């Protein structure tokens, strides 16, 4: 049985699948892969069920070793992956020989890389998911020395070699991005000027950005009155505005409820792009209707 050994976790390496749904009424964050597009393409390439668990590798320093032969694919951010010292092309499958070592170096584009192994990862579920949720230490924590077993693939490894994604389906990660949002539900907590500021200013990701949420820096957004609401549920991409007027975008490991007004919500189709943004990158927001947001999804068929 092939095992992936975590030699170094680097900045942050976690196991993620589709996420943990059904328990938000108990305060359990859905978690799951931040970039659901890269996640699914990685699995598609290696012949796995699309939502199989993968390694989500964030920024720098991760090093992995394979105990035996396997087939993998790497998608998402280009973190200069090398296999046994040689540059490893992304968005395609590779046959990995026994004892090979995969390392990551300089960050070229994006923030999070996804590693899928043909067969998927042999890990127990907790509340229907293999995703790791740091706040409650749910799921398999990856420490230096951790050994993760790969399940037996359904197809023979040879049949998976040479599969690749055509360039037109490989996203470009830029350091200035435009993110579409649906306004509300508490956009009425802001003045007309406040809304205008939100939709016309450039906001920068501060270093306080992680799987829980992204804190942005930029022009303060003006409140019409109260700056707190009666706490209620949020979702992936909810943009809260706390008292200081600077947006916080709620991400995969977000808390399930919040007491700040939500000016808008990032559309599902733009979450993968947002997941690849890192501190120093800038965002501009564009308002779209729910109908438009949902038709975009149908076109790209998430």
């Amino acid at each position, binding site marked *: 049985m092939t095992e992936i050994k975590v030699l170094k976790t680097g900045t942050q390496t976690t196991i993620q699948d589709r996420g943990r*749904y*059904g*328990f*938000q*009424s*108990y*305060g*359990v*964050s859905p978690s799951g892969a931040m970039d659901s597009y890269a996640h699914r393409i990685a699995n598609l390439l290696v012949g796995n069920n699309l939502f199989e668990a993968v390694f989500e590798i964030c920024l720098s320093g991760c090093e992995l070793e394979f105990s035996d032969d396997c087939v993998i694919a790497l998608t998402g951010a280009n973190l200069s992956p090398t296999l046994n010292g040689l540059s490893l092309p992304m968005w395609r499958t590779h046959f990995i020989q026994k004892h090979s070592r995969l390392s990551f170096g300089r960050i070229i584009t994006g923030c999070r890389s996804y590693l899928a192994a043909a067969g998927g990862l042999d890990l127990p579920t*907790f*509340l229907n998911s293999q995703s790791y949720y740091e*706040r*409650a*230490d*749910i799921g398999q924590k990856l420490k230096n020395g951790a050994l993760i077993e790969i399940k037996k693939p359904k197809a023979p490894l040879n049949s998976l070699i040479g599969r690749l994604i055509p360039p037109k389906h490989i996203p470009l990660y830029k350091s200035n991005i435009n993110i579409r949002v*649906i306004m*509300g*539900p508490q956009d009425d907590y802001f003045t007309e000027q406040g809304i205008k500021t939100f939709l016309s200013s450039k906001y920068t990701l501060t270093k306080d950005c992680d799987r829980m949420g992204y804190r942005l820096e930029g022009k303060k957004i003006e409140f019409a009155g109260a700056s707190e609401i*009666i*706490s*209620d*549920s*949020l*979702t*992936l*991409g*909810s943009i809260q505005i706390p008292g200081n007027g600077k947006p916080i975008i709620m991400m995969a490991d977000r*808390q*399930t*409820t919040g007491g700040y007004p*939500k000016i808008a*919500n*990032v*559309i*599902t189709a733009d979450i993968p792009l947002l997941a690849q943004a890192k501190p120093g990158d800038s965002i501009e927001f564009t308002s779209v209707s*729910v*109908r438009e*947001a*949902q038709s975009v*999804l*149908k076109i790209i*068929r*998430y």
Partner: protein
Amino acid sequence: MENIVIKPLIKPLGDSAVTLEWPSDISPEINLLVRESARKIDSAKIYGIIEIVPAYRTLTIFYSPFDISYEQLHDRVILIDFSSEKTRKTEKNIVRIPVVYGGEYGADLAYAAEFCKMSIDDFIILHSSPEYFVYMIGFMPGFPYLGGLDERLYIPRLQKPRVTVPQGSVAIGGVMTGIYPLKSPGGWHIIGRTPLKLFDKKNESKPFLLKAGDYIKFVPIEERSFTDYD
């Protein structure tokens, strides 16, 4: 209970969720209506709904836009009769929470009592007398948003939140009291600790001690009894 006939406002929360909001103050009656409404929506078995989460006076429906559009969901939801059930007597589920007040488990108890201009004993009596209502669970796994704190015990939050508050800590902040189910940063005053696990990840079949609609009663115990609950 009087028949409440306030219709909720329906608002999109992005493209994969919808929030129903009852324009009202916080009260256990409205909260019951919210939870009953969540049950009604669930019973309608609308294809595409992933989960329904109640809060103080809102509920949020999480759905898959591949299975149902916003308009379709909206049109199904407005057909549901959300008026409250007449004379429905529900049994109170009161969960007793043993607490060791003060000492090493409640570092801020003395300060809190002094701030509220009362003795530590009186503070403990006032904190442990009410049956607190659990409005919702959120913020972190198992964390209850409680109603019913005596206004004589209101204390502003810490100016500088603690980096770590131990698991099980019972605390007061602003007009709220609560229990930290997990070790966490925290800006509330720590007055005691419970040995009970509000979130037990070792018990996958029943990991959560509390749910929305429960009541809790804090029961003072001696420090030496803390380990009786292992």
